[in-house]
């Protein structure tokens, strides 16, 4: 892999475990299901979309449209919203992540976050369009705040999710 930032060393990571991917997705679903209310609701990023996007960019061979779609359906049921609105949004976000993964992987954290914010906004806009078509009111600009915060969380998220893949050095072994 070409290193665009020669100053920063590139690590060789261990492969991601499927079990870990599933666990993080379930954790994201849990975070989404927390009883958010009031302003918490506005600043809450869509954790499922965020983690899904992370794995689509990082491990596009291990995660796919089927998982994104099922997660979307579960979110729809949990929210009691129209069946398929999150499913459609997550599918499109997963597609964008899989198509862009080679490009995004080569950037450092800040430009990566700048790639992620528009994708999360796309997720919001798809849900918004479906809701407007179904007859809801436009909720205001605050609606998009969660995605920006999701972008801010991206560096921390990728640090956390990469932890199990970092090689463990054992000085006694060598």
């Amino acid at each position, binding site marked *: 892999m070409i290193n665009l930032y020669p100053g920063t060393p590139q690590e060789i990571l261990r492969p991601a475990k499927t079990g870990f991917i599933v666990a993080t997705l379930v954790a994201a679903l849990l975070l989404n*299901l927390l009883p958010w209310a009031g302003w918490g609701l506005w600043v809450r990023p869509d954790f499922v979309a965020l983690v899904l996007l992370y794995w689509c960019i990082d491990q596009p061979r291990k995660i796919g*449209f089927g998982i994104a*779609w099922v997660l979307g359906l579960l979110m729809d049921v949990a929210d*009691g919203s129209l*069946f398929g609105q999150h499913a*459609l949004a997550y*599918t499109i976000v997963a597609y964008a992540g899989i198509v862009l993964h080679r490009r995004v992987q080569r950037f450092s954290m800040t430009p990566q976050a700048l790639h992620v914010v528009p994708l999360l906004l796309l997720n919001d806009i798809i849900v918004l369009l479906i809701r407007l078509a179904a007859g809801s009111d436009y909720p205001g600009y605050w609606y998009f705040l969660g995605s920006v915060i999701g972008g801010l969380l991206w560096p921390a998220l990728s640090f956390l999710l990469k932890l199990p893949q970092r090689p463990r050095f054992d000085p006694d072994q060598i």
Partner: protein
Amino acid sequence: MEHTPPPFFKTGASPLVRLMIFSALSLVLLAADAGYKYLETLRQVAAVIIFPLQRIAAAPASLARGASDFFTAHSALRAENAQLRLDIMAAAAKAQQAKGLESENMHLRTLLEARQRIEDRSTLAEVLYAARDPFSRRIVIDKGAQHELRTGYPVIDGSGVVGQVTRVYPLLAEVTLITDKGHLVPVLNVRSGLRSVLAGTGVQGALELQFTALNADVQKGDQLVTSGIDGVYPAGLPVAEVVAIDRNPAQMFAKVLCRPLGSVTNYTRVFVVHAAVVIPPRPEPEAEKAPRGRKAARGSKGG
């Protein structure tokens, strides 16, 4: 197409094709759900799958609540106890009056051969979480079809109507709050006896009295109770209080803003009333010719 070399690695359909397939599936689901409500069984199954996750997610909040209950100060408890004792005294006096009135009422009703008001059973439910969806005002409670809840049951708290059960899962139920956009409650103004329809605006803590004539007898501070003509909400439950009236002669109707009395935003427990409302038979067609009758019928349909 025939001249493209075979792929080195088998990777299945291309991402674009998969995107098309799954998007089409989602759109079919959307259309089927929005237009025909075909998918309630699928929804029930998925709801049971995520039920444990929902309980786990709701656990920290209830744990924190329990902890704060545990660490309540002794003096606070004593003060609350004294206050409660006073309240009980006041309530007892009222209850005795009410008993007298009830028997009197029953007697009068039998005299009038009117329909007896059925005493409604109610279930105490805990609010698992409030609407995470910025588009609608809904809460999810921890009682469902297993506890004999049905759609349409009104949900109240200590101070007034909170909403209505709109979707029942085996172990959970979804309650649409009265502030949800498009949710209607037929109400009665306690002071003037004026009947009208209270509509949710979708904005937290704001309700609007619909179709109020410019010269209607509505004042700031008026209490609104359910009128019971919709067959959903039992009559006489407090709903809202008028907070502002804007009588603009350029408009057809006055704009009457109300505030819900039930704490629609901060609650932990609510009552679901198993309202056994018997809808009276439809009036004869002649009655519908009168404009007043038609208006009432339209209002009752939406609730």
